[in-house]
């Protein structure tokens, strides 16, 4: 390995694999793990190497934890099915950042077997209370909620009241990102319009950042009734177009493949006006 090349400079797949494999320099491993995920590498050695990097002890060093977080994120990007059990295991690690990365990647895998362990973590006592210097909550609630919602959307979960109720208390969370993640997950789980209302209200929030987040959330949910409100929201047309594209391509309530029906024609007309 050429030590003169610094992280951030262009590398190729072979070199990335070498950097991930070596044990001397953890920052190089971290970068290589990120790079392979980012490049959607299909090399057969990638996933086994990432899984090895993810497998760390609760007492692991800061440096090893940083590599594991990077590996966890890339396994999600690569949709590595074999990472399901190791990522669920990583939800138990004492490091908050690793649990957060594992939760997000479980969301990307979309396997319903992850719902129970994600819920268990979310419903731990103190999960939604600030800890330490107040930077984090006890658990990475936003990531856990998003993952649960995303899995439900992928597997088209049936409406389940028992399953929704425990999530409702997160709607009252003092952190707007957690409250938004809760309404988004509830909408994805149930398809019930009442859960879209908090997000629709945020489209008129005085802060641009909140309006942007709300329109991306509604887009990610595929909540088609929000299309008109999205198209009039005071935000960049580029973001509104991305959200509307999601509504066209991934409607929450859909009947199979997308065709050019009356509602699709309306959605396309809204997009045309934003060009």
């Amino acid at each position, binding site marked *: 390995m050429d030590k003169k090349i610094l992280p951030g400079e262009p590398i190729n797949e072979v070199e990335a694999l070498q950097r991930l494999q070596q044990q001397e320099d953890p920052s190089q491993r971290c970068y290589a793990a990120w790079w392979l995920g980012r490049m959607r590498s299909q090399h057969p050695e990638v996933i086994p190497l990432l899984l090895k990097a993810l497998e760390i002890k609760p007492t692991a060093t800061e440096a090893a934890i940083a590599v594991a977080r990077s590996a966890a994120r890339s396994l999600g990007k690569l949709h590595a099915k074999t990472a399901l059990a190791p990522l669920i295991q990583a939800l138990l690690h004492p490091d908050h950042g690793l649990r957060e990365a594992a939760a997000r990647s479980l969301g990307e895998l979309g396997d319903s077997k992850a719902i129970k362990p994600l819920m268990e973590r979310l419903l731990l006592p103190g999960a939604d209370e600030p800890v330490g210097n107040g930077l984090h909550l006890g658990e990475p609630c936003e990531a856990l909620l998003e993952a649960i919602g995303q899995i439900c959307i992928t597997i088209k979960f049936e409406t389940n009241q028992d399953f929704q109720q425990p999530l409702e208390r997160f709607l009252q969370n003092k952190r707007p990102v957690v409250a938004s993640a809760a309404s988004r997950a509830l909408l994805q789980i149930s398809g019930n319009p009442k859960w879209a209302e908090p997000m629709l209200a945020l489209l008129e929030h005085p802060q641009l950042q909140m309006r942007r987040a709300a329109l991306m959330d509604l887009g990610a949910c595929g909540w088609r009734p929000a299309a008109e409100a999205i198209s009039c929201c005071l935000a960049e047309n*580029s973001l509104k177009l991305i959200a509307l*594209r999601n509504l066209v391509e991934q409607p929450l309530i859909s009947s199979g493949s997308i065709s050019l029906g009356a509602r*699709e024609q309306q959605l396309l007309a809204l*997009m*045309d006006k934003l*060009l």
Partner: protein
Amino acid sequence: MNLLKDLLLAVQTAATADSLVDATRDLAAICSDLPANSSDQLTAINCLIELLSANNPGAAVAAVDGLIACKTAAVQPILNNLDEHNYGARAWAVRALAQIGDPRGLAVLQRAIEQDIGPSVRRAAAMGLGRIELAELSPEEKLETMEICLAGLKLGCADGEWIVRYAAVVGLENFSRNSSNSFAQACLRLLQARSQEAIEETPVVRLRAAQALAAFS
């Protein structure tokens, strides 16, 4: 006209970003009501053009709306003030010209679709190339203009960003409406390609192309 003076003064003395947005909106709202090509309107248009360089997106959006409302009266002032060294201002000017559809803006749109680094600017240019007003051109000018438009739309169809390809499809749909047979055939082929999964990876672009093709026949 005292109202205009007040509005220009409000723009010049705006102390905060928000008050500049408000002042720009007020000025933009009256600009198209001023007598066309009067010196008052030209003063207002030039002020709106200056606001494109103010590094205030809210004000720029309002200024672009005001310029579009003035239609062809805004075209020459925009072209006279194109700022080569201010990327943001140039991007807003492309948006205004794309919406107005005056043939004098063609060269700016052509250059934007060919080499602008901002996807949202290429998006606006692609849409604009489909709606250049051809009615007042001589037959030779019309032919030349249409060739440039079609070449630009073809580039837009091959762009790396889905939204530029989407805009090019919308552009082609509009362009084909007032095209003679050979241009219409070229549009048809480009739209057919965009509707195919093997060529176009983004579902919403394929859907929009299918919609355009349905309107074609």
